[in-house]
């Protein structure tokens, strides 16, 4: 009986932020706690060589990793966020947006590009966790919607790499409705029989999981990524118990049948290429 238990749930440790691995320095791996050489981690696509812990990477690093020769053409760059509700928390939303734009160098929490992955022309959307926790507001929703329109127009497959805390509170129901918007657009894409591959990275939660991140023809997760709808802290407060170690991790979702495969970052590009070729070659 959870409601009889009075003890407070223990706080979960702070989530890892996007890591800048300093060159020529030794760093402590957040996964195994061992000291590893920074350059080695960097060369290994920011994966710990000892325990395979996947450090957070930025959207640009992800593009670098996935696009052939690191080349891509960024598209749908003309959308800027607004503050429809005049939302005030400790800082006005507008100010917060400005700060994140400066800090991350991105205009919003997603980057859309036209590129080739293993020589397959693809529209690739990568979420930027460093921009307000990758939260989805009107711009994220609209960019994906337009990306899907381009897929349909140019007969291209879609790949979305998610990293997000969910719908953005500061746009309230506008954010909520982006879930409906993108899911509706994905039904257009499905009707055209164009493939959509969803890549879920750490963390993918809330309204992003409960819309496009879970709707891939194939759902691929990075190892040990946190993937779920409700955040672990909220669940712990509900059930008044500590959650098991692997709960809501990629491997757990694989076991429960919620993702198709868990793929190491070094293998991701190759796997995407293979999957896309399976779904596109209709010989």
């Amino acid at each position, binding site marked *: 009986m959870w409601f009889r238990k009075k003890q407070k749930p223990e706080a979960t440790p702070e989530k890892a932020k996007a890591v800048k691995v300093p060159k020529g320095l030794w760093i402590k791996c957040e996964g195994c706690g061992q000291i590893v050489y920074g350059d080695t981690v960097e060369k290994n696509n920011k994966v710990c060589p000892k325990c395979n812990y996947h450090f957070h990477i930025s959207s640009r690093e992800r593009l670098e990793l996935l696009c052939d020769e690191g080349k891509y053409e960024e598209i749908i760059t003309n959308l800027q966020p607004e503050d429809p509700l005049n939302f005030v928390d400790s800082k006005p939303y507008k100010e917060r947006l400005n700060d994140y734009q400066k800090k991350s160098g991105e205009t919003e929490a997603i980057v859309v590009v036209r590129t080739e992955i293993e020589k397959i022309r693809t529209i690739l959307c990568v979420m930027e966790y460093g921009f307000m926790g990758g939260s989805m507001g009107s711009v994220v929703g609209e960019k994906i919607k337009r990306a899907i329109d381009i897929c349909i127009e140019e007969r291209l497959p879609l790949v979305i790499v998610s990293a997000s805390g969910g719908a953005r509170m500061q746009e309230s*129901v506008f954010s*909520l*409705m982006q*879930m409906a918007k993108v*899911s509706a*657009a994905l039904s257009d894409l499905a009707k055209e029989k164009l493939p959509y591959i969803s890549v879920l990275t750490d963390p993918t939660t809330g309204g992003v*999981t*409960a819309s496009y991140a879970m709707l891939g023809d194939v759902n691929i997760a990075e190892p040990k990524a946190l993937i779920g709808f*409700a955040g672990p802290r909220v669940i712990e407060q509900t059930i008044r118990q500590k959650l098991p170690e692997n709960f809501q991790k990629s491997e757990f979702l694989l076991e429960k049948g919620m993702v198709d495969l868990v793929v190491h970052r070094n293998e991701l590009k190759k796997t995407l290429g293979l999957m896309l070729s399976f779904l596109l070659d209709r010989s």
Partner: protein
Amino acid sequence: MQEVKDFESRIREIEEKIEQIKFYEKPEKKEKELLKLERELKKEMETIYSNLTPWQTVQVARNPKRPQTLDIIRAIFSDFVEIHGDRHFGDDEAIVCGFARFEGINCAVIGHQKGHDTKERAFRNFGMPKPEGYRKALRVMKLAEKFSLPVLTFIDTPGAYPGMDAEERGQAEAIAVNLREMAALKTIIISTVTGEGGSGGALAIGVADRVNILKYAVYSVISPEGCAAILYKDASKADIAAQSLRLTAKDLFSFGLVDRIIEEPYGGAHHFPEIVFENIKQTLREQLRELSQLEIEELIKQRKEKFYRMGALKEV
């Protein structure tokens, strides 16, 4: 949980007085006194309800005495047959599904049920659906599509259930699939937010040709308490969060995020259920008539385009 200031206490006082007079006083004395009190009650309701803060509106929306899906079904539908289960895992009592007739028209009816008293509320998991609830709802929607029946949904939930079992069984996937399938469902869908429109758990049965909201209902991406806990690190600042989230019917309508506000008298649906049932009935009647004029392809196109238009951004 913080204490909610009882802004309706004055209304209840007068109501109690009326009850007492009806019970104890002599008939000749009754009439005059009653008339006076009833006038006072009406005035009090008007004063309170015309000045509700967003946070107070949330309290009204959550009032357990407000009519819920089963009450609405009883009042404005006939021949209701409830059907259960998602055919995969189990049934979910937080979402009620079935078939019924609305003024002679066969319909699929789907709605959250929070429950009125403690026992029912526990049985209904306080209206918080689990994956099997969304999947049951989708199953019924697909049936409706197959047999060309309009789907009428009623939304009233604090949100998806944040429990381990719901996560294990993939509630995110269940919600996502509903959103995608509802967007392209080949039949009429009309949704009405009757109480609390709690985030993904609400939207999962809310992608519709027409989305209505009762005047004192709310719809939000997160509960004011949840929002306050994250942004201000203090759940007791929910009143401020409620204001920031712009979750009232009036605000949502002004943003074009809902299609119509269904009137409630001052005092709310829990004081005047019959009037509100009549208003819901009239709205559904009009909308069914209007939507049934459209070809299915056109219906779906308009439904999708409505959601495609939603968003606040600027093009530079």
